[in-house]
């Protein structure tokens, strides 16, 4: 209620400020607006922006402060309204014939632009801080060696749980490995074929179609794993081979995730292969090498750093992927080599520990934040490594 009142009043003040500012500026020029330093619009904008930005800014700072010292919301709104009113009158008073309203408006807009671009920083700080704080609380209740080196994962909401990350990491890596084993050969060969062999027409059809795979939401892949791939693998492979009878398995999730990663590998590799200069191909072909020999011994070595970077980026996607493994991989934390057994991953356990009724004081819930920061560090590390390899080993061609 008080919030609505505040925002309605602020909107009225901002709009009124614009028109009053214009009026006052016009009056101060004595009817000849050529005498003004700035256009009338800028005088209007000056009052409007000063009022609006002060009101919203004080409100934001106030609510941020009150989350530490606990002010009642009415006080915060009242202070913000007072500050906005003060800004309104100050900026209104300043209007005169020589007032440089355009410069004032431009520096305020510049402030807004800078604030907007710092939001990216704030997000990262928010991610790191929120996870670090909760992880700290987790390690106050649970031994960190147990977490990083424990080989059993059996949370128990009555307390006394085993929360070792190793089975989860194993599941994550196993699934990612299968996914990469599917995606890297297919993606790489597709990129080679499309950039080196395919006619223009084939390329213009096949490339966008493969990239459609990248635009499909992961929940669709998850459902595909759950209702089609899982049962198929179970009926035609796992059961006849006597390897288990669970439809959710490492293989299911890995295969489907591999399909998802094909376009990541192929379109990145495609760009890199295309960046290899034509002169190198011509040189190799002119010496009598066949196209495949040219690709194997000239183009791939030249493009290798970029391709490795693409694979690392795909690996970081695979490790952070959630919905496919939630629906396709299962929930049992096991350390096993059997690819047709259900296993679980870091992301699955983050979801399962943080959904439903959660108690943010128990280690069983807080462990999700420790898992989250592990995941964050892993994927960030892979991304940074990928960038580093691409930058450091890139061949420079003129």
């Amino acid at each position, binding site marked *: 209620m008080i919030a609505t009142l505040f925002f309605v009043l602020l909107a009225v003040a901002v709009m009124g400020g614009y028109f009053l500012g214009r009026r006052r500026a016009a009056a101060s020029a004595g009817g000849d607006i050529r005498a003004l330093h700035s256009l009338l619009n800028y005088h209007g904008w000056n009052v409007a922006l000063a009022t609006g930005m002060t009101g919203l800014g004080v409100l934001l700072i106030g609510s941020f402060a009150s989350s530490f010292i606990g002010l009642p919301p009415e006080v915060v709104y009242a202070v913000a309204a007072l500050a906005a009113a003060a800004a309104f009158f100050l900026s209104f008073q300043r209007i005169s014939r020589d007032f440089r309203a355009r410069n004032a408006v431009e520096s305020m807009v510049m402030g807004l632009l800078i604030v*907007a*671009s710092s939001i990216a920083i704030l997000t990262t700080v928010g*991610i790191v801080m929120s996870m670090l704080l909760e992880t700290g609380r987790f390690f106050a209740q649970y031994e960190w060696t147990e977490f990083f080196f424990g080989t059993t994962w059996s949370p128990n909401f009555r307390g006394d749980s085993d929360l070792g990350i190793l089975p989860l990491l194993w599941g994550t890596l196993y699934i990612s490995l299968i996914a990469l084993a599917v995606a890297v050969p297919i*993606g790489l060969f597709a990129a080679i074929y499309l950039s080196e062999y395919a006619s223009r027409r084939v390329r213009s059809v096949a490339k966008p179609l493969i990239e459609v795979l990248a635009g499909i939401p992961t929940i669709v892949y998850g459902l595909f794993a759950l209702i089609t791939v899982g049962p198929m693998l179970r009926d035609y492979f796992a059961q006849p081979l006597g390897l288990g009878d669970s439809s959710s398995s490492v293989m299911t999730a890995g295969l489907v995730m591999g399909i998802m990663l094909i376009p990541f590998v192929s379109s990145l590799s495609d760009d890199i292969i295309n960046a290899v200069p034509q002169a190198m191909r011509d040189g190799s072909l002119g010496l009598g090498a066949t196209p495949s020999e040219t690709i194997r011994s000239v183009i791939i070595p030249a493009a290798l750093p970029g391709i490795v970077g693409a694979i690392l980026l795909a690996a970081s996607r695979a490790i952070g992927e959630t919905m496919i493994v939630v629906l396709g991989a299962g929930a049992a934390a096991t350390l096993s080599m059997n690819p047709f057994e259900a296993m679980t991953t870091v992301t699955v356990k983050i979801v399962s520990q943080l959904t439903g009724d959660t108690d*943010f004081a128990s280690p069983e819930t807080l462990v999700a934040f420790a898992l989250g920061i592990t995941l964050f560090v892993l994927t960030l590390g892979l991304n940074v490594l990928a960038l580093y390899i691409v930058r450091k080993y890139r061949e420079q061609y003129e």
Partner: protein
Amino acid sequence: MTDAAMPLAGPAPAKSLHQPDARTRKRNAAERRFRLYGMAAVSAGLVALVVLLTSILSQGLPAFQQTYIEAEIYLDPAILDPNGTRDPEEISKVLTFSYKPMIEDSLTSVAERLQGQGASELTPAMLAGMISGAANAQLRDYVLANPEEIGQTVEFEFLTNARIDQYMKGKVTRESAALDSKVDVAQLNAADALVEGGAMETRFNWDFITAPDASENRPEAAGLGVALLGSLYMMLIVLFLALPIGVAASIYLEEFAKKNVWTDIIEVNISNLAAVPSIVFGILGLAIFINWMHLPNSAPIVGGLVLTLMTLPTIIIATRASLKAVPPSIRDAALGVGASKMQAVFHHVLPLAAPGILTGTIIGLAQALGETAPLLLIGMVAFVRDYPDAPPGGLFEPATGLPVQVYNFTQRADPAFVERASGAIIVLLVFLVVMNLIAIILRRRFERRW
């Protein structure tokens, strides 16, 4: 190195170039094989796409059809209004549960007619069991809206229960029904007879798109209404926050920022944020927006904020690319006739970059629409039956989102929900295709090459 001829490795060259020697044949075979691998890889990718889409379409299209049964129900005053006052308050005290015997009684004559046709083991209760559990509530709503019709016989159209519906779609067979405790072969026979008599038909089901979710036991009544509304609200929030913030950040970084440590940090940050797993944004939303700022659980506002943070890098990267594509001569011309730097950017560069910015925004929105994992963590998996109000109040009320609804459906035991989940995916994919088409058309129509 000397000028002396090097001894050639391998066999002596063939006499004629028209007759390839063994080594050339081998190299040519390797060449053909390599080419074949490439073709196989491309086809593998395409086959995967086709299999994925056909699997989802074939599983999901039946969800848009539903089986309805027509029945004449005698609105019994003895049950609905025992005191005979016709007072809406009195009538509303009758529980939904009490409507069930009324349906059963009204079906007695139908059951007798079908028994006469040879379905000897069919009882009225079994016939009533073919009707969805949602029918009681449907009947109650009708009676509360039209209390004057109590005592009359009214014709109704009810959803059939999921098993009968799946039988009409060919997923339940007589063999599977024999093992199923929820359906009887006699009911399937009755369904055949009713279809022949015209009292039962399968047709397009708008309720799947507009109705709210339904409980575990009534897959036939579950719809996507609340999820669609929740997704719409979240997309609105993303649009109104991510677009201005993203554009402002890109303008600063591309047009004004001096090259220094601070802008370097921001740049590295943005490219890293684009690669952070989406579930991490869910953790951020839970810790900051819910636990610290005490915004409500499962509300579109929290989902919208989390998705905004996720979409920002995409929009910033697209906007910067299209700002960069505007040639410097435009800026120089504006500055040359006396515009300030800010005027040059806002009056000239930004309008010229607008099509590219819009395309990037639509693609970012499409990404956000399909995102599931972060929404699971902020409680959007809750079972929500009430439509949220109009914004702004409705933004703080519980809702679900389209992809989360799919996840929700997959977590339920009844196999009929598989069809619902796939149907929901089709709705989601239709939205994504439309959004991407708009982006492509925008790009084709307004893209300018300088």
